[in-house]
């Protein structure tokens, strides 16, 4: 045998031959294109048409954008510069370089720009522990007090106002928790509401007014009653927290230069309205969704009415209500800040939508989850907090983020009630003699900024969905 073999050895390879490269059509870019762009006749035609459309759009816009002028004092000046350079048309980005502070900050005093910027930087610190659970839980305390810090930084004024607000709210929270630990949840809520009224309102004189009014219906004697109680000198103390903060302000006048709401505009305004509405509508929406599921008749009907009425009427109507109608109903002379009114309306509007999105999540949970929670002996709030809501909220994430993105973009509607958001400033800038007639540049800039914010929200929601995925699909 070995003899035979020695004859054939000249024809046998001792090592494997290296693999040939795959055919050109089956590898690399060509394969990818074959599979993805030209897999069939229809696909090929669509690819060619799409490429043509992209080329057509870019060939019309790119030269215009790239030929843009970045420094000029007016539109006419801009056009002259373009003509000198030999372009027939080009973007006039100079309007952005000149006016971007107004588009971002509105009329906010330029020497105080550090305050909104600092508020924004702190916002990242406040939002991070909420968004990313890997961060230490103690940072959540900072998130909790952040709204007061942001308020103080943006509007300024005496430092004691936010401090007293913080003190008041923590008293409400502590009193409520203590009472609910002792005698049940319902009692705790009652105590919390009572403390809240004592802290921020004037319950004594309100009570007196009501008493006087009721008594006045029956006899004239009661007129003597009210000054008697009024002379207790307690009345001057209420409302407690504002009085205290005034007092502290006169003893130690610490504070920042105050900025009025009229001076806040541009993206700062859109962010203030959008973010406050997002932050406040989330808890309100959860409560409304639970209330709508509730068996308690009154709570159920109140929640259903609130959701249906708020959601059934266009946002622009609510904004007009906030800006014009409320003026007629409020007592004259009450200066109820327009931005605050708008934030409240937008919050209510968003909360109604969030409530319905979360109700969808609650309805998607199998009944066994509720029964399982009950069988563990958890009370209502424990079962909601530990079992139901974590699952329901996870299901609802895409819907919630969808609502938030819509809400943030809807803030531009405030332009119709005369607030100066980015779109309002576009109108103002286009009305100046220098920039009258400019169009695309401003809208492109504002559109791009909005896109960045919304794109971030969308990416974050996708990250959250991936992270919270527990099923094995």
């Amino acid at each position, binding site marked *: 045998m070995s003899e035979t073999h020695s004859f054939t050895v000249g024809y046998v390879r001792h090592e494997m031959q290296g693999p040939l490269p795959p055919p050109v059509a089956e590898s690399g870019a060509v394969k990818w294109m074959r599979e993805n762009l030209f897999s069939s006749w229809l696909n090929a035609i669509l690819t060619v048409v799409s490429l043509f459309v992209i080329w057509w759009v870019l060939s019309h816009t790119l030269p215009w954008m790239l030929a843009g002028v970045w420094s000029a004092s007016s539109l006419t000046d801009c056009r002259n510069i373009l003509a000198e350079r030999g372009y027939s048309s080009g973007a006039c980005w100079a309007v952005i370089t*000149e006016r971007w502070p107004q588009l971002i900050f509105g009329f906010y005093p330029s020497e105080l720009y550090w305050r909104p910027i600092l508020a924004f930087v702190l916002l990242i610190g406040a939002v991070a522990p909420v968004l990313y659970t890997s961060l230490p839980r103690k940072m959540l305390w900072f998130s909790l007090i952040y709204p007061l810090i942001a308020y103080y930084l943006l509007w300024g004024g005496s430092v004691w106002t936010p401090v007293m607000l913080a003190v008041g709210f923590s008293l409400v929270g502590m009193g409520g928790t203590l009472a609910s630990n002792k005698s049940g949840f319902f009692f705790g809520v009652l105590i919390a509401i009572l403390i809240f009224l004592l802290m921020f309102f004037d319950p004594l004189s309100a009570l007196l007014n009501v008493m006087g009014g009721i008594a006045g219906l029956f006899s004239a004697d009661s007129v003597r009653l009210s000054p008697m109680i009024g002379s207790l000198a307690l009345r001057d103390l209420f409302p407690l927290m504002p009085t205290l903060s005034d007092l502290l302000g006169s003893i130690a006048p610490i504070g920042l230069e105050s900025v009025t709401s009229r001076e806040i505009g541009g993206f700062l305004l859109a962010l203030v309205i959008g973010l406050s509405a997002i932050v406040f509508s989330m808890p309100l929406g959860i409560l409304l969704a639970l209330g709508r599921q509730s068996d308690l008749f009154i709570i159920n009907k109140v929640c259903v009415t609130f959701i249906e009425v708020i959601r059934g009427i266009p946002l622009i109507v609510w904004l007009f209500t906030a800006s014009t109608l409320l003026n007629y109903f409020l007592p004259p002379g009450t200066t109820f800040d327009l931005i605050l009114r708008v934030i409240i309306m937008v919050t209510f509007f968003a909360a109604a939508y969030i409530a319905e999105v979360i109700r969808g999540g609650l309805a998607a949970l199998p009944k066994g989850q509720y029964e399982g929670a009950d069988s563990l002996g958890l009370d209502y709030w424990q079962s909601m907090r530990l079992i139901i809501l974590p699952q329901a909220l996870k299901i609802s994430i895409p819907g919630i983020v969808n609502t938030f993105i819509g809400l943030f973009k809807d803030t531009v509607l405030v332009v119709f009630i005369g607030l100066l958001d980015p779109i*309002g400033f576009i109108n103002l800038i286009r009305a100046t*003699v220098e920039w*009258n*007639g400019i169009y695309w540049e401003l809208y492109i800039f504002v559109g791009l900024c909005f896109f960045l914010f919304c794109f971030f929200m969308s990416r974050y929601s996708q990250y959250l969905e991936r992270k919270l995925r527990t099923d094995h699909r």
Partner: protein
Amino acid sequence: MKKSVFFGVLTAAGLVAGASAAATLDDVKARGTLNCGVTTGLTGFAAPDANGEWQGFDVAVCRAVAAAILSDPTAVEFVPTTGQTRFTALAAGEIDMLARNTTWTFSRDTDLKFDFTGINYYDGQGFIVPSALGVSSAKELDGATICIQTGTTTELNLADYFRTNNISYEPVPIETNAEGQQQYLAGACDAYTTDASGLAATRASFENPGDHIILPEIISKEPLGPLVRHGDSEWGDIVRWTLNALIAAEELGITSANVAEMSSAPGDNPEINRLLGTEGDLGAMIGLDAEWAKRAIMAEGNYGEIFEKNIGETTPIGLARGLNAQWQDGGLLYAPPFR
């Protein structure tokens, strides 16, 4: 029963509102600033510059009033109002006066319960056409397509005008002036119609203004002026006579340059003396000091100066005085005597 309680509360609220509105001057003095309603941007009339300072023809009226009352032309809080919010803002007391190119009409003066305190600009509806169209009069526009803002008085004026002249047109409805400019430039319509001052501003923004002409016909009356709430005549008087002081100052040759000199001592002209407070006490009659008019004129100059600076022929808008000239020059400006 419930209904009557509700309306009772409403009436009470209305009464209180009426009572508090009676002392606007005191409110303004106590506040230290004048809340003045302006547009959310109209070229030449009101717009903020790069530093956030409001500029314009209507803005100047606010500044003059603020200077007369508070001795400081910058003590004005400008409140941008839209066509929808302007009247409620004024009625609810959010603003003390409205200087927002608002046409003085019967129903606004009576039914809406406002007082127009004069006319600071006589406007009227006109047409702009490309010169290539070869049209020199609005009456030659038979069968033309015309861009028109919907829901405005201009729409009704246009229908009236074409019916009276027995010619036809095809309307192209648009929403805003900005959209109108774009549509007209894109050739969606043969002509664009709006207030003549707006047409001039629009034309000034075109790349080649020479290719477009504004037709000579003015087909409507649009007297624009500042207004205040009904029921506080003292406050209305102050706004009315501040505007009159600016107009009279031009007639009497008082400018921002020479007002300081002319008011330092009584001169030969008794009316100038009375206006500038060097003689008599006109200021006290409206609850202000003697130098109120001097300060109003110093703020932005007399009417003519304000006109030239913001919308006049030296600006890109380039409006001629026309109806807005003094009465001796063939215009309609005629300030009552300061006596």
